[in-house]
């Protein structure tokens, strides 16, 4: 006779747990080396506090009432709880603040898809450090963390959440058309995006720019191609990304970073640089992050901030896969 556990949850047995723990330890060592201190926050918080991230934040999947009738929610990521912690406990602190976490987060699962509703995340939050310096530091920590996990081939995708929006504004696409185009891009529907652009009254140059810009991905040459398309007509649109990329190159990790001018993440609190992590051995992203310069303000303490989170279970699969591939090449 077996006893069920909820969909999306699972037991972790010793062999896997030992390896997950070892991975957490390696990541913690890297975060510690860069001066980040570990924090833990409550698994369950007040729903209205977590909801201050705005409606575009990751919604809590599990909500329930406490004995006093207040609505509680289980965190869906660690960024909002740490923003809350900074607003509460570090009002007068010297900046920047550097925190890391190894924690579980909770999300709703779709039926029959084998998704994890409870999972480990490892990541950092750097609060009070502006772009581009803070972003460059976060990418440097991320690259070191991937190396420590044995993922020397992993790549950090770097985009800018405000780039496409500012180009749309500049060429005169009015709301609500702007929001619709951004939704299509965030939904990775490039066919729908092209069709929507065709329906707008645009000059040929603007249509080409808006259609081709989100497809630009690669190294430094991406900036030249963006200029050829006319992106420099939009004053300053490329500057933040170029400054960040120059900073990353300055730290000697330019080859780890792939520029992606069409990158948008599902979480609405990102404002500037956006990060995603890929490994050739895996079809899913390993994690992501970016700048969230407005989130702290919503919690009453306006501060620039940047961070990333890695999905530990996926990191573990990628690690095992890279090991296996490495053995294959050696024999």
């Amino acid at each position, binding site marked *: 006779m077996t006893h069920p556990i909820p969909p999306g949850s699972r037991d972790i047995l010793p062999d896997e747990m030992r390896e997950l723990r070892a991975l957490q330890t390696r990541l913690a060592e890297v975060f510690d080396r860069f001066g980040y201190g570990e924090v833990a926050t409550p698994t369950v918080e007040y729903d209205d506090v977590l909801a201050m991230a705005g409606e575009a934040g990751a919604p809590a999947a599990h909500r329930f009432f406490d004995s006093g009738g207040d609505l509680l929610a289980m965190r869906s990521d660690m960024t909002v709880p740490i923003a809350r912690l900074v607003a509460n406990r570090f009002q007068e602190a010297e900046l920047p603040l550097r925190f890391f976490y190894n924690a579980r987060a909770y999300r709703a699962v779709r039926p029959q898809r084998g998704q994890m509703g409870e999972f480990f995340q490892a990541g950092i939050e750097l609060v009070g450090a502006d772009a581009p310096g803070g972003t460059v530091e976060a990418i440097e920590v991320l690259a070191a963390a991937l190396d420590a996990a044995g993922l020397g081939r992993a790549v950090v995708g770097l985009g800018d959440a405000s780039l496409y929006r500012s180009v749309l504004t500049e060429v005169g696409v009015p709301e609500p058309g702007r929001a619709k185009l951004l939704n299509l891009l965030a939904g990775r529907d490039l066919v729908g995006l092209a069709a929507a652009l065709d329906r707008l009254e645009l000059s040929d140059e603007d249509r080409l720019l808006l259609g081709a810009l989100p497809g630009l991905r690669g190294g430094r040459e991406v900036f030249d191609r963006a200029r050829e398309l006319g992106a420099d007509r939009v004053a300053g649109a490329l500057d933040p990304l170029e400054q960040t990329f120059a900073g990353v190159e300055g730290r000697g990790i330019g080859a780890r970073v792939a520029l992606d001018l069409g990158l948008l993440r*599902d979480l609405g609190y990102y404002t500037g640089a956006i990060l995603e992590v890929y490994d050739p051995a895996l079809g899913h992203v390993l994690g992501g992050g970016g700048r969230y310069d407005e989130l702290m303000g919503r919690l009453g303490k306006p501060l620039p901030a940047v961070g990333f989170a890695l999905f530990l279970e996926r990191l573990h699969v990628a690690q095992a896969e890279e090991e296996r591939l490495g053995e294959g090449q050696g024999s």
Partner: protein
Amino acid sequence: MSGVDRATRARPEGPLRLALPRGALFESSLDLLDRVGVDTSEPRGEGRSLIFKTPELTLVTMRPSDVPTYVEAGAADLGITGKDVLLEQADRVFYELLDLNYGACRMVLAAPVDDDHLDEYERRLGAIRIATKYKRIAEDFFERTGRRAEVIEVKGSVELAPVSGLADAIVDLVDSGRTLRDNGLEVREEIVECTARLIANRVAHKLRAAEIDDLSARLAEASR
């Protein structure tokens, strides 16, 4: 924002993997590949193999509705399938890169020719009963148009449902419309026009950008 998908192991190295839909879109997809210089003699043959290697692409053949599953997980880098399949699996994550302009058909609401009481069913009985293989598309359509439908998912011939009394109407894909006519049904409303699409895995789209952009540009040219 939903749960985290468990990672699929062993994303293949080597040539790009293209998931191809067996069935109605198969021939046209192979014709398109011919036009961009991919050798399709093997998949056109009588063999029972499902995977075919060419110098540029590894072709993986499967049911059209499995294509998004393989592409999302990275078991295929690219895939070709109908827009109807993509709409029905809209919760999956992949890039939709190209409209390939073939395999055009319409997703429609169809009802028995002699039945003009559809509105009455909703008004008096609370809902129209709809049989379909496309549950999500049907539900979205009725929600969008502000009507209440009871959507019944069936796997086989949908045309049977109104004839046998399981449902009042159907939502289905029609090509010529002949199957509808033969079963005493007619198109009442058009929901969406569907063609074949090229989709890409999210990670492959980044890590193999140059190869994918090159192939995608050639396919766009050849399918114009």
